[in-house]
């Protein structure tokens, strides 16, 4: 196992920007801000009772989500969980359609069949439509990676799951099979130190998750996810190794879940000091903005403009979602199988009670 040393990349001589252009660095900033703002606003709407269903905040973990997903090419596939909406947004999902999903509208990616972060866009941005059962997409990521390998395509599948999901049998099966067949897959564990209320020591008895990679015969890396560039660097290395036939890698990104498991959870079980320290010292969004200012890539003005852009996009998405009709009730039985052609045709935009 390797523990990545974030500061290394900043030492004189090393390329602090890990090969990224100014435009790319700015794109990362935009993504971090977008994900953060989306998360904050959606929670506010939830608290006001203006959002149906559930929300799963990824706040504090943007370094993980944006960093790993940014290492993927459009043709690579992503298999995330409930917590990883920011990774899906980084992969390119349309904010407007994501928001329509949250409000159960026909323009949501699932056409109203699912809500919140249980979203995906396979034929567009090649992301798995999230399912709750943990980590049910890990074995599926093996299957996609198998397809790439069989066809000799230079593509990679990435699976993300939480620390808690690593206790589940499927996690072991998927890592094991990916190693045996040297599949082009990258396994990301978003170790935010809690599975709902359950802390790491009740999930496993080893100091790190990354060291478990050895049990499968694959490299393991542990990275501090406050630093999006370091996460990106580590992920890119793993993605490129996989792409070149070097097999799977396990990456543990360490952060803290700033909010409760879901909207209703005040997360009193997280020690206050720990949370405050993370929010103060390890905010991946604030850190990255400071870094870019410090390095002269952007100035305060530009950061403000990014923030404005993000807010506008959110408002636009919100209006789009509210204007999108509900699905038609009669369609509830359609599209279970391909046979009725429901998904092959545009959905009806009339007749829903919205």
């Amino acid at each position, binding site marked *: 196992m390797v523990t990545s040393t974030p500061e290394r990349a900043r030492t004189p001589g090393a390329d602090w920007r890990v090969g990224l252009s100014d435009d790319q660095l700015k794109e990362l900033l935009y993504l971090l801000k977008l994900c953060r703002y989306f998360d904050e606003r959606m929670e506010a709407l939830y608290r006001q009772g203006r959002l*149906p*269903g*559930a929300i799963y905040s990824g706040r504090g973990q943007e370094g993980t989500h944006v960093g790993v997903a940014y290492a993927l090419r459009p043709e690579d596939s992503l298999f995330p969980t409930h917590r990883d909406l920011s990774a899906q947004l980084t992969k390119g999902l349309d904010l407007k359609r994501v928001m329509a999903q949250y409000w*159960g*509208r026909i323009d949501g990616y*699932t056409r*109203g*069949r*699912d*809500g919140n972060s*249980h979203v995906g866009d396979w034929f567009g941005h090649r992301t798995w439509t999230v*399912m*709750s*059962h*943990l980590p049910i997409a890990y074995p599926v990521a093996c299957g996609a990676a198998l397809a790439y390998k069989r066809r000799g395509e230079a593509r990679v599948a990435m699976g993300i799951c939480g620390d*808690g*999901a690593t*206790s*589940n*049998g499927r996690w072991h099966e998927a890592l094991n099979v990916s190693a045996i067949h040297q599949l082009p897959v990258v396994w990301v564990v978003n170790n935010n130190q809690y*599975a*709902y*209320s*359950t802390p790491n020591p*009740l*999930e*496993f008895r080893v100091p790190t998750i990354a060291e478990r990679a050895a049990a499968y015969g694959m490299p393991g890396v542990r990275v501090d996810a406050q630093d999006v560039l370091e996460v990106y660097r580590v992920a890119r290395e793993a993605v490129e190794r996989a792409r070149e036939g070097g097999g799977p890698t396990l990456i543990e990104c360490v952060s803290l879940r700033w909010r409760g498991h*879901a*909207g*209703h*959870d005040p997360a009193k*079980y997280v020690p206050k000091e720990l949370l405050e320290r993370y929010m103060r010292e390890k905010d991946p969004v604030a850190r990255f903005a400071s870094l870019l200012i410090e390095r002269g890539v952007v100035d305060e003005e530009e950061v403000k403009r990014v923030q404005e852009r993000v807010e506008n996009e959110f408002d636009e998405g919100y209006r789009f979602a509210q204007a999108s009709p*509900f*699905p*038609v*009730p*009669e*369609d*509830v*039985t359609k599209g*279970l199988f391909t046979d009725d052609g429901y998904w092959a045709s545009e959905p009806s935009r009339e007749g*829903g*009670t*919205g």
Partner: protein
Amino acid sequence: MAQTGVESAAAGHGAEPRGKRTEDGQATYLVAIAEALWEEMERDERVFLLGEDIGVYGGAFKVTEGFIERFGPERVMDTPIAEETIVGLALGAAMEGFRPVAEFQYADFMSSGFDEITTALARYHYRSGVPIPVVLRAPSGGGVRASSFHSFNPEPWFAHTPGLKVICPAFPSDAKGLLKSAIRDDNPCVFLEHKWIYRRIKEPVSEDPDFLVPIGIAKIQREGSDVTIVTYGMMVHQALEAAEDLEQKGISAEVVDLRTITPLDKDTILSSVAKTSRALVLYESHRFLGVGAEVGAMIAEEGFEHLDAPVVRLAPPNVPVPFSPVLEDAYLPQVADIEAAVEKLAAW
């Protein structure tokens, strides 16, 4: 008994602490369940709880809030997200004389522990004679805008599996009495709590520590003479609402609440049908091979001579539970659907 319509928004996601009885001594379904657990843990130290986030956090729905403070982390054991192993832990401890009660965070995740449930837990006694006093508790069912993975009704899978007793109470008293019976039973019981009911339904509930409701006995929740509605779980409440309306229209519906799916109380069902000659089987699990398929087939076989009309089934279609309110309402049988079905049957 208070009750709100099925169309109200999500409430099952564990928003509030479970709370206590009301001032006049009524208990919600959730409080009744918590009382059953508490009393049995007080009574018998072999009883212990295990599951995800049931300790410090008190469970996703706060059923076990306050338990760890009273009984400690050994008897209120937080487990990793490893459902196969949660069941295995319960089974192994039961074989060694404990009486474990395992909580699944949602009944949906019982599919993640399916093999240990249907192979190990269910079949062990038949091949060995070892008593297996295990209860698996799980919040099931829809109507709370929680979509496909938090609304499932797994009872048909488990009712088809030999070796499990499957319990689906609709009222606080039944929930309490049946859960206490399940904990005292020497066999594996799947106890499905309905999350729509948790905080919606309350009633006076016995405080007798030995208050038990026997497993395997249905209950007539409302007497009637024209049509029998056989149902269970959340649908009991929709059926009662429909029966009330139907009364105004001069149709007298009898509501049979199964309470237990296996063993199925055929006698109560058949006597009711003998009286009314008409049966509507109403259920929330998917229509095809849902619980009502067994009930319908059973009536058609054993109550044929009583029937003056087809045995009609009303149930959700065979698709995953959808999220959008419009779709979920189209998916779940509504009170109006029940009334229409009963009226049609009555006019047969």
